[in-house]
């Protein structure tokens, strides 16, 4: 057992191999080669990363052009959510869809961005947006109500087009 820590080499190294300088130079030459290659990173807060239409950012509710929400408070999304992040409370309305969510909350600490809510919604009322930098300073702030969730429909058009094409 104790012998294990004594390393045996397969072959004896030549003097050049023993001083490791060629290896270090080989590594450094690659470093210099990379200095003149195009840059791969972006400088994040100044340069923003713009995701494609497929991107699943935070889920949002669609607000129609006249200011109404599209959601009919059927509660399917809250049932399918694996993280139990959604809470919906339905109420009656005069509008033709008859029901609307009196209270719609998504707990962003629980949400795992799976996209099931969007998939299941019969009205196409909840979609995944492109927002990816979510910050809060306490737990209460992380529960997004209707004020934060409703987003005008024209801002989400490319996601809706994407869904129509691929679902």
């Amino acid at each position, binding site marked *: *057992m*104790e*012998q*294990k*820590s004594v*390393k*045996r*080499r*397969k072959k004896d*190294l030549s003097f050049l*191999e023993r001083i*490791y300088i060629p*290896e270090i130079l*080989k*590594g450094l030459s*690659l*470093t210099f080669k990379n200095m003149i290659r195009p840059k*791969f990173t972006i400088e994040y807060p100044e340069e923003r990363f713009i*995701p*494609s239409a*497929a*991107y*699943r950012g935070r889920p949002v509710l669609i607000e129609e052009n006249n200011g109404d929400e599209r959601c009919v408070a059927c509660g399917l999304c809250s049932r*399918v959510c*694996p993280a139990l992040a959604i809470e919906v409370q339905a109420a009656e309305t005069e509008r033709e869809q008859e029901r609307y969510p009196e209270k719609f909350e998504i707990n962003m600490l629980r949400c*795992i*961005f*799976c*996209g*099931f809510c969007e*998939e299941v919604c019969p009205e196409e009322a909840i979609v*995944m947006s492109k927002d990816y930098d979510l910050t809060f300073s306490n737990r209460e702030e992380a529960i997004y109500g209707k004020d934060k969730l409703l987003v005008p429909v024209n801002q989400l058009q490319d996601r809706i087009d994407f869904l129509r094409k*691929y*679902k």
Partner: protein
Amino acid sequence: MALKTEEMVLNMGPQHPSTHGVLRLELVIEGEIIKNVTPHIGYLHRCFEKHCEVMTYPQIIPYTDRMDYLASMCNEFGYVVAVERLMGIEVPERVEYIRVIMAELQRIASHLVAIGTYGADIGAFTPFLFCFRDREKILNLFEITCGARLLYNYIWIGGVMHDLHPDFIRLTKEFIKEFRPNLKELNDLLTFNQIFIDRTANVGILPAETAINYGITGPNLRASGVNWDLRINDPYSIYDRFDFKIPVGKGENGTVGDCWNRYYMRILEMEESLKIVEQAINQIPDGDVSSAIPKRVKPPAGQIYSRVENPRGELGYFIVSDGSVNPTRIKVRAPSFVNMVVFGELCKGHMVADVVAILGSIDIVLGEIDR
């Protein structure tokens, strides 16, 4: 002749950068030499198996992502294959091809992390950045397809979430073209670097017999010279249609089954995965990807054990169903968990600094060990 010193206990972790997560190693050392190692796990336990019992079958898919978070696609693949076998679902050809492409790309991405962090663990930081650069390209491919970069929820029971992005095939071909030279560069920089070889060859030797007795799987087993890969030995999906080899360890720079061998297996496997992806994107048929997705996933009462080859070894799902929409029990055979068991054996008699080299070469993911 050896100087007799007193034994002492050294705690490594849970917040130690080389333990790849929250793992605490209790080392009993005599001077520099390891006498015994006890891994303490469970810091990342999230009750995956218990939690599954109150969820429906599709709802479990996003949670399987979170076990081995470096190989989410492969985890979903394994789970979905198990449920499909239980329900007897045949999936369309195109879906099978998409799944294989995704799983093999994921294998490359996962091995890149393993290699990169291994280099970083033992003092070579440059390869780490290069590996992450290449992995990023794979993640971009995943992102345009399914919208997420790490936890995909893409492979569904009976199909996939949605079809490939129109540019996907072209971009994948481009990636393969770019990646081959990068892999060679990585080999020059790290794999055949004499400093690296001296550090890892003949360290932590795992003989084939010990590996089999402990139930080690994946690249770690193959590095010990055992030719065993579920993609060949117990084919699932459409792996029997592709032409690829299973690399086994030969002990080029030391003994069969040493750290360098385990590391080198991953390099060779990436090359093989590239071959599979190339063949698959050339053969992929057109078709519908969601036609076989069942409206209601309600498997008949019964049980099944189904296993797939993950980047880290054999990932098995044992599912017991009572005919309702929730599984009665799901048990996961996590490759990292089983591979971790042999760790103490490998470390005995080595120096403290070698613990890091051995741990990195086993390539564990704590999310999967603790579940």
